């Protein structure tokens, strides 16, 4: 391929820190790779690992999970729960034959717009070097998520 591979990355952000960091990056006109599409959650603790699998199964090549720095969670300690789930999820991904580096957890406070942008750029480069995920072909079919069927029905 002569063209560079442009990965698609889904990013989960916390309403109180990293979503604001993304806002700040915007306000400060910090440039970063356009490959990431963000979803706002109230807290990284809301992140159901299913969301990550769903994104990967649905065509994303990587997932970025962001939350408040340890000790700075808006809801006291829920980012620790996100951390625990993240570590388990990485193990699950390995067992499924997916490079765990495709999913990355980054702590970013509301003040760290520049850092968030840098982390996004880094992740895009990392995923680019891994190549496309090709969930459908490499994993022989999807996980049969309910929602995927719903979309099918509508189409």
């Amino acid at each position: 391929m002569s063209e560079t591979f442009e990965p698609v990355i889904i990013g989960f952000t916390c309403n109180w820190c990293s979503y604001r960091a993304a806002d700040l990056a915007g306000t400060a006109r910090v440039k970063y790779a356009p490959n990431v599409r963000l979803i706002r959650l109230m807290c990284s603790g809301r992140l159901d690992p299913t969301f990550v699998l769903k994104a990967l199964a649905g065509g994303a090549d990587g997932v970025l999970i962001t939350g408040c720095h340890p000790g700075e969670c808006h809801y006291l300690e829920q980012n620790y729960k996100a951390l625990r789930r993240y570590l388990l999820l990485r193990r699950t991904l390995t067992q499924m034959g997916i490079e765990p580096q495709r999913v990355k957890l980054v702590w970013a406070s509301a003040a760290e717009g520049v850092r968030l942008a840098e982390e996004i750029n880094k992740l895009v480069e990392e995923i680019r070097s891994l190549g496309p995920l090709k969930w459908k072909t490499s994993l022989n079919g999807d996980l049969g998520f309910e929602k995927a069927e719903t979309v099918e029905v509508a189409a």
Partner: protein
Amino acid sequence: METTGQEKIGVYVCHCGSNIAGMVDVEDVAKWAAEQLKHRGVVIARDYKFMCSSLGQELIEKDIKELGLTRVVVAACSPHLHELTFRTACARAGLNPYLCELVSIREQCSWVHTDKAVATEKSKAIVSGGVERVIWHEPLEPLHVPIHPATLVVGGGIAGIQAALEIADAGYPVYLVEREPSNKTFPTLDCSACILTPRMVQAGGHPNITLMTYAEIERVDGYVGNFTVMIKQKPRSVNTDLCTGCGICQEKCPKKVVDDVYEAGLGYRKVIYTPFPQAVPKYPVIDRENCTYFLKGTCKACEKFCPTGAIDFTQQEEHIQIEVGNIILATGYDLFDARRITQYGYGRLANVFTSLEFERMTNAAGPTNGNIVLRDGVTTPKVVGIIHCVGSRDKNYNNYCSSICCMQSLKFAHLVHERIGAEVYNFYIDMRTPAKSYDEFYQRILEEGTHFVRGRVAEVTDAARKPGEEGKLIIQVEDTLIGKQRRIPVDMVILSAALEPRHDAKETAKKFGLSCSADGWMIERHPKLDPVATMTEGIYIAGCVQGPKDIPASVAQGAAAAARVLGKIQQKEIALEPIRATIDQDKCSGCRICNNLCPFNAIVFHADRMVSEVNPALCQGCGTCVAACPAGAISGTGFSNEQILAQIDGLLLHNVLRMEPIAE
């Protein structure tokens, strides 16, 4: 759950002038949405110059009424800016406001990308995500909770006192908590005592203000309208019911220690003390770490001489719990430790003073009775050098401008001229005198004959190289206006030290659920439009805790924060975002996994029915339990599994790519 395909969705793409339209082909995005998302329920897609303008809002309202829209997606700026605007517009047109979704194609797209084609494609994906998500939105009603009329003000500086007085004058109770034995300020232009003490006396004697000095906040629980705060009252060792503030104990106390806090280390205070003569409250405290009785078990001189028997050595630390509806944080700043810049010699060269030391020196009640003298206490300096930006605008320490130092340094120059007629040099990088009457003051100091040298001082040294430098402090500086290195011998150096965030700002932020900027100042809700509110409802910031500022600005912020609080109290109840978790009682298996995950103890377990239930008043809506429930029995309003999964689908453009099989 089946809602797909039955909704009538309107998509509104904002140009935001050229903010979005400059980097995103907004017409193309709207056209694309109308065509490609039609089968998902999009019945109309428009682009408009400013969606948030009243004309833009009317456009949406009209469509809701005429086309019978059941869902609205606005692609514009961050929901933190205009979510409320568009929700309100929908409500005006009779649509439940929570059926509107604002997706950000400005902060997350047009402002951060550089390729218009790519940014346009990303905007389409973002719009598609919003459309898929909004299909699963549910009409919600905000929760209404009563507001406790009392307010907690933390920090008894000028901003805190101002806020407390405003609220107390309006007739509502205030708890003013200060961790030092009394309040203090760092004066700028006026005599500090003249401006602050009347305020302090007013606050101290106000029937609506409960003044709690020598006390610290231990814990804050609850939410806007209903905070429960634990306060630690440190033992004064003086019974304030009996003490008359006569001061005999302070006279009789045989032990003196260096006063680091109020006298900036220049003077002494007794071990039983009030920080300064006009301190409010008038009751002294015993400094137990230094008290002979507490150290050796004998002395008790203060107790012997106290005419009312108010000394109480047995006083214990008290923990007081209070209920308040709102909190104002006005904890101020710390002064930069000038010792950190070793080349300026503070702490090594005797006649290098900090700005705070000089302030004390010029105070008539200060350690030198208002005389400007060298460290020996008698010699009047003939030449004085004042260095600006010490610890500010310096990559090695703090990048920001401390904002008060220029004016403070000008005032110092004036005081030196006026009191001792010495020659004065001010060393500045840029002169910043932007507020009312400030530049006029600068002009006056220029006319008084102060020498201004533009350049950052390299070094202050006592190593004489040339005749005339012996016994002097030599200021080595590049005068950037004449492009030459200069060595200027002076007798006294004053360092205008930077304002820094409190050393414990991070812990304070954590305690109150706020966030600090990288520098350590508390982050406001919006830097221009909402400088005193924070992201945590019911908690406000005022004064230097938000960033360096002078007294007029601090007072204005104190009053502004008070006005916000009063507005809240007047409403008597507050509408909370209905983002809450609920447990389907039929699906709950009673495993109790969620019980321990909730940091707010909002989940109760009914042992009789073996099911868990969420108390909506305590739930803060983080959604951790929703993600953890193995039975899928917990749903989170506003951020449900359906909504998030659909948004993932939308962002990955399944709705469009489905028309052909997904590209392998």
